[in-house]
């Protein structure tokens, strides 16, 4: 695990378009550092304070809400430095200096993590650098260096508007890059990926951007008192998100563990649920489902066998007893009512309930049945054919699933499965 984390940050083979992002970020940083070195650093104490903030934020990063940017403090601090103005700051930092400070501080934050063997990702850090560069350029274009906070609303509105534009340009550029990466990595349709990235941006992304604006305004007016005063509420916010993400992790792990109970009880072979879920997720990505629906789909695929627990014992070989459709549908019904009882996974229960309905009797005539049910149905069937032990070739399995198109299986889902297998999906 540690070995993995160590190499994760710099494995070129798996990075794909990440190479381009890292190259762009690296080139930007290099040019900026050279330019700054030639001109000299202005207002070094502010550069130092914001650099330290960025580095510390990078060091204490954590994962939240499925976005890849894990360092909200670093992001807020870097954005704030990009939109800094007087009166407290005599000479506002130039674009090159902003990029250079961000780059050096980010590197200073990453190195300890890499040494300690913690998770780090050079691509994510470069993405942040690029979006900060966008913000700095946008802000420089919209303002002049002698525009300062005077306490009058005319200047304040102008600066705040420029700040907002800068923060938005950072957010949008990052969303575009992120959507491109999601399309490349998970084969999501680009518009769906962009929609997801933008919707994430309106939550934690907005908080990071606005906090950056607040930090910049407070520093401009209070001088070096600004960063510590803003930092306290910022840390509390980070703490709130941290607790949220740890509760989220716990919950996901709980659902996964519950799903494994069918394996321990002998109803399914080891890893069967995980394989089914992986395939269902791949299909969901291919069809561009929203993140919330993706989550329900994954849970439904994991939990689709839970109903069997309430039935009789499995046969000695461990194979499923449920040969007939009626038995399988009954198990699905029981599973759905079990999941419903939790009171929080109603959508998951609905998917599981119809996961064994044949297409012809189900979704073809009843649009209330979610497409996710069809996905789970196909994923279960494919896993049974190809998964461990049964060992059919993917082509053979596709052939026999193809025979059931329209009657047994949802044509849209089978088409998607064909694409995924064609791209080389393996369990």
């Amino acid at each position, binding site marked *: 695990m540690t070995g993995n984390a160590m190499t994760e940050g710099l494995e070129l083979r798996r990075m794909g378009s990440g190479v381009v992002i890292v190259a762009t970020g690296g080139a930007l940083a290099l040019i900026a550092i050279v330019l700054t070195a030639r001109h000299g650093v202005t207002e070094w104490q502010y550069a130092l304070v914001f650099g330290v903030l960025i580095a510390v934020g990078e060091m204490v990063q954590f994962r939240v809400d499925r976005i890849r940017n894990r360092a909200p403090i670093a992001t807020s601090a870097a954005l704030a430095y990009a939109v800094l103005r007087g009166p407290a700051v005599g000479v506002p930092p130039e674009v090159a200096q902003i990029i250079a400070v961000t780059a050096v501080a980010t590197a200073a934050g990453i190195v300890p993590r890499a040494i300690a063997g913690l998770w780090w990702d050079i691509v994510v850090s470069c993405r942040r650098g690029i979006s900060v560069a966008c913000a700095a350029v946008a802000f420089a274009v919209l303002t002049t260096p002698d525009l300062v*906070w*005077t*306490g009058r*609303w*005319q*200047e*304040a*509105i102008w600066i*705040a508007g420029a700040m907002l534009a800068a923060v938005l340009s950072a957010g949008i550029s990052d969303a575009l890059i992120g959507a491109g990466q999601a399309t490349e990595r998970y084969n999501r349709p680009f518009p769906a990926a962009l929609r997801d990235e933008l919707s994430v941006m309106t*939550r*934690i992304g*907005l*908080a990071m951007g*606005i*906090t950056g604006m*607040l930090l910049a*305004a*407070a520093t*401009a*007016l*209070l*001088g070096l*008192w600004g960063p510590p*005063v*803003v930092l*306290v*509420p910022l840390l*509390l*916010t980070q*703490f*709130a*998100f941290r*607790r*949220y993400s740890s*509760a*989220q992790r*716990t*919950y996901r*792990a*709980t*659902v*996964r*563990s*519950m799903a*494994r*109970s069918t394996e*321990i*009880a*002998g109803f399914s072979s080891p890893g069967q649920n995980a394989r089914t879920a992986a395939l269902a997720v791949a299909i969901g990505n291919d069809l561009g489902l929203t993140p919330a629906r993706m989550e329900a789909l994954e849970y439904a695929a994991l939990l689709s066998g*839970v109903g069997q*627990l*309430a039935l*009789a*014992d499995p046969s000695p070989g461990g194979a499923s007893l449920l040969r007939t459709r009626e038995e399988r549908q009954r198990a699905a019904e029981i599973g759905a009512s*079990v*999941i419903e*009882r*939790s*009171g*929080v996974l109603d959508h998951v229960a609905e998917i599981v309930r119809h996961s064994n309905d044949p297409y012809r009797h189900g979704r073809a005539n009843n649009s209330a049945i979610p497409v996710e049910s069809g996905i789970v149905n196909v994923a279960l069937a494919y896993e049974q054919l190809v998964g461990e032990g049964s060992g059919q070739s993917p082509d053979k399995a596709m052939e026999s699933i193809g025979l059931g198109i329209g009657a047994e299986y949802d044509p849209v889902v089978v088409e998607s499965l064909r694409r995924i297998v064609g791209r080389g999906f393996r369990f």
Partner: protein
Amino acid sequence: MNRRVLLQLVVVVTTITAVVILGFAVANARVDAPAVCLGLLMLAGTVLRPRVGQIYRTSLDYVVVIALYLLSGVSSAILVGAVGALGQDRRHPLQKKIFNGAQSVICAAAGGAVFNLAGGPSGDDVLRHPWDAVWSTTAANATWLVVNALLLCVVLSLEPGDPTPLAFLRKVALPTSPSLLGYGLLGLLLAVAWLSGLNFLSVLLIFIPLYVSRWALSQYEAERRAQAATMRAFIQVIETKDLYTRGHSERVSEGVGMLGRQLRLPEDRQQALEHAGLLHDVGKVGVPTSIIQKPGRLDDSEMDAIRLHPARGVELIGNIPFLEEVKSAVLHHHEKYDGTGYPAGLSGDNIPYFARIIGIVDAFDSLTSTRSYRPARDVEETLDILIHDRYSHFDPELVDAFVEVIRARGWKTAADQPAPDGSVTVAIDHDDLSLGSGGGASGNAAGPAS
């Protein structure tokens, strides 16, 4: 004088104080742009409040009041604080609403007095003397929190029932005050952003991040509830295999919760203990149904299958990031104090603390529930059995604590159980002390009933 009268007296006194303060505030208040704007914001907050819930209320209120200390002076801040008290939960009785309103006025006034004493700056002086602003608003904020907690303590000590003032201080006031102090700095920042020339737009800079962090906190609560609900639902499925053990895990969780509170465990461990109580038999999912439902005695291999269930349980929950104590409790809940239990044969204090607790409640619930081969025992009789088996089965100190808490607070025994089945002579509940065979116990508990 009884408590009711005393309570009414307290309400009357606080209300009169608040009214006097309000009178002074009205006389001295400055009606300027910040006071009007933030007052309107407060009013909007009171309208929206029923939808967003209590948790948002305090944070919004005192952030605005602190900003107004700096922008418009203490009197205006008190008035706006009083506006914030207008919107309250409709279900509260009138007396409570009046007291809450008076309380927020007194808190705002106390905070304001300290703010003035500390030499708090106002207007553009805030930007010239940042340190004075930081220090005086923090002092005012701390005063606010202390006065608020004191007033609540007075009421709680006069109102019968939970929570007691001490429990309130320990569980609510102390843990939340550092973060509330921290968020108080947002009040200062609101004032600074206002003075920057942004005027009422400064509200957006402050409340959007605040709202997002509150959103994260509420999501945290939602995830936690979801997890608890999911675990309970799952446990119920496992228990469907056996009519007689239905509800057992939830009752054990309840029981260890009672014992844990008696032992004054800190909040995170208390939670972990309740989880462990709920999940202690989760490994039974790996025991074939035919064995669980088998009437009659089990042979050695079947008994071995039962004895595997703690290890199966740990295997199942191993990936959930619980405290380590939860896993060790699930693994060792069938150890006995004299070292004759399973799976490891640990004895005495070598048995994990949580496992010793769960062992007691587990046996207690089994004995007070109906089994196919015997009726339920009553609570007193079962407590006597536990007391008799101190040292041999159970940690004596924990047994004493458990007996004390059950005698003080009572126990809700299993309901809706089928009557004992006369056709079955002996079957097995692996938790049942009254059975001498492998998994069960020996000695006193094997009473005349079987």
